[in-house]
């Protein structure tokens, strides 16, 4: 069964949509809690933080949705969901849910939605979340907004206003799903901030059966080969990132970025032209078509601060910009700026940090 109905009923005179009684029955905000290999993807907690605000505005509960194999882990995930803001959790435990697979997860999540009817369902825009969200939205025949960077409630229509970049990132568009429920959206990791964890919070768990047996599931997981984390840059969750742009001029100068990063135990990031020139891997690109990051400290050298770069890093706590053009747009949103030649400032900065650490060491 789906929430597909006739054309929206428009109230005379006003731009307001009146939901049918069937759709009014959809209430509450849900976040799909994604996990792999016994670990919840942090994007799920970020979404609970965001979901909390939406639920408060709507005056409805916030729920986590956990699908997994029976065992201690799923209970722990529910508990963690409470700590991160969920009021309750919907849980499906079944051996068939041990590894993520599209078919059983789509069935489980779709059944939960049809049974308990949430008005909003949020998922991470990850390889798992996107795979699942597209399938679930199609099964439910409802709207799905991809890679949102802002989520709000349009109170007039009691509807989710999901905004995402458009026109190459220079503009945002707000998308509504007016006459279908639930309203679904995905959000990339690190776009929303991590909510404060509160270990005193508790909640209730609603269990539901999967209603599918292994022999009905066509796709089988033969093996899982974990990444060797050491050889993959981990920009998304780095505390410090040192990034270089086209202003570094050549790969030799770009070494100055690596020097500072090495000293600070930081990850190296880059703007798109640097990646396109092949100075660093695609994994290191920060921005709209690269990674979204939220480090405590982001140092940008020779980066102009174009909107497509900015959207990927403006969530950083502190931004230091080094640029020889005092009018570079990056100075409009950085915390600190040094106007000057990156080729001389960077080594000086590396040197100064070294000195600072030596002093700190002596003091301790």
């Amino acid at each position, binding site marked *: 069964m789906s929430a597909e109905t006739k054309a929206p009923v428009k109230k005379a005179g006003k731009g307001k949509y009146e939901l049918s009684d069937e759709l009014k029955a959809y209430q509450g905000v849900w976040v799909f809690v994604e996990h792999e*290999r016994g670990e919840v993807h942090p994007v799920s907690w970020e979404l609970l933080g965001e979901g909390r605000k939406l639920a408060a505005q709507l005056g409805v509960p916030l729920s986590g949705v956990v699908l997994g194999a029976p065992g201690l882990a799923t209970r722990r995930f529910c508990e963690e969901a409470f700590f991160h803001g969920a009021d309750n959790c919907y849980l499906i435990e079944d051996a068939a849910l041990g590894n993520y697979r599209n078919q059983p997860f789509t069935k489980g999540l779709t059944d939960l939605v049809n049974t308990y009817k949430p008005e909003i369902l949020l998922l991470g825009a990850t390889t798992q979340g996107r795979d699942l969200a597209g399938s679930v939205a199609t099964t439910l025949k409802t709207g799905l907004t991809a890679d949102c960077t802002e989520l709000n409630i349009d109170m007039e229509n009691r509807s989710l206003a999901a905004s995402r970049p458009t026109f*190459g990132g220079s503009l945002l*568009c*707000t998308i509504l799903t007016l006459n279908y429920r639930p309203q679904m959206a995905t959000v990339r990791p690190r776009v929303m901030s991590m909510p404060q964890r509160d270990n005193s919070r508790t909640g209730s768990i609603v269990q539901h059966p999967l209603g599918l047996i292994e022999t009905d599931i066509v796709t089988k997981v033969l093996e899982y080969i974990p990444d060797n984390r050491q050889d993959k840059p981990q920009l998304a969750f780095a505390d410090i990132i040192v990034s270089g742009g086209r202003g570094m001029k050549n790969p030799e100068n770009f070494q100055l970025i690596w020097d500072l990063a090495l000293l600070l135990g930081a990850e190296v990031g880059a703007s798109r032209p640097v990646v396109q020139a092949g100075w660093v891997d695609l994994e290191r690109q920060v921005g709209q078509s690269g990674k979204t990051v939220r480090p405590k*400290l982001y140092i940008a050298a020779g980066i102009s601060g174009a909107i497509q770069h900015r959207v990927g890093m403006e969530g950083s706590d502190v931004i230091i910009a080094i640029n020889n053009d005092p009018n570079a747009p990056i100075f409009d949103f950085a915390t600190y700026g040094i106007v000057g030649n990156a080729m001389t400032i960077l080594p*000086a900065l590396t040197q100064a940090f070294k000195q600072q650490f030596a002093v700190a060491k002596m003091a301790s």
Partner: protein
Amino acid sequence: MHIVVCIKQVPDSAQIRVHPVTNTIMRQGVPAIVNPYDLFSLEEALRLKDIHGGRVTVITMGPPQAEAALRKCISFGADEAILVTDRAFAGADTLATSYALATAIAQIAKDQAVDMVFCGKQTIDGDTAQVGPGIAKRMDMQLLTYVSQVDSLDITSRTVQVQRRAEGGVQVLTTRLPCLVTMLEGTNEMRFATMDNMFRAARYQLKVWDRVAAGIEDVSKIGLKGSPTVVSKVFAPQAKTQRAEIIDSESGEPRDLALTLISKLFTQHPAMSEAVVKQSA
């Protein structure tokens, strides 16, 4: 083997320039290309055809100009190309798009059963990555997204084994045909168009289907009508007004600037000093 590859014509984003002052996109004269992600899927389909024989059909839903993108695919070695074009498709979101494409593919299958469908991982314009999963669901096919490698395909037992990128690793999956695959970028390299295929592409009579030819009866499921999502407004991102504190020092020497910056950083953000010292250790 009959493989259908879905491709979309998109503006070449590498050539899109952002206006330095107004921050709007400058689209004039930007050439249209085959969505770059789709080429990894097309190449994989052609590779499977090289091994197992059969036929590769490319399909796109789009305006009449999208014909050029289909011809490009013929020049790479696709056998057939179908352009699904109708004003009734205008304004489609991903739900309506996947409905139209799934119905058209079902129409293709009336001619010769379809064993596999390939889609790109995502497009570079709409950029949702939702159409592939949507088509698979509507056609009741197994869905394999973010595939980095097709390990093996057995036509007799109708099974396929692939490596699928997950967040923290790679899943090795096996499934039965028919299935829908979206390939990860960088997993293969598109072959060069041969002279023969280029000639063929130039002369090729592509099939142009309107809504009815594509087998779509219910107009409430396509275009704007069939789209649950509506764009309510387009706006410029809110500019943060806080300007950077520009670091200055008496000498203006890099060394002094660096020291001034670090002392500010550590005094104004006490937690920072701890974080930085901890990281560097």
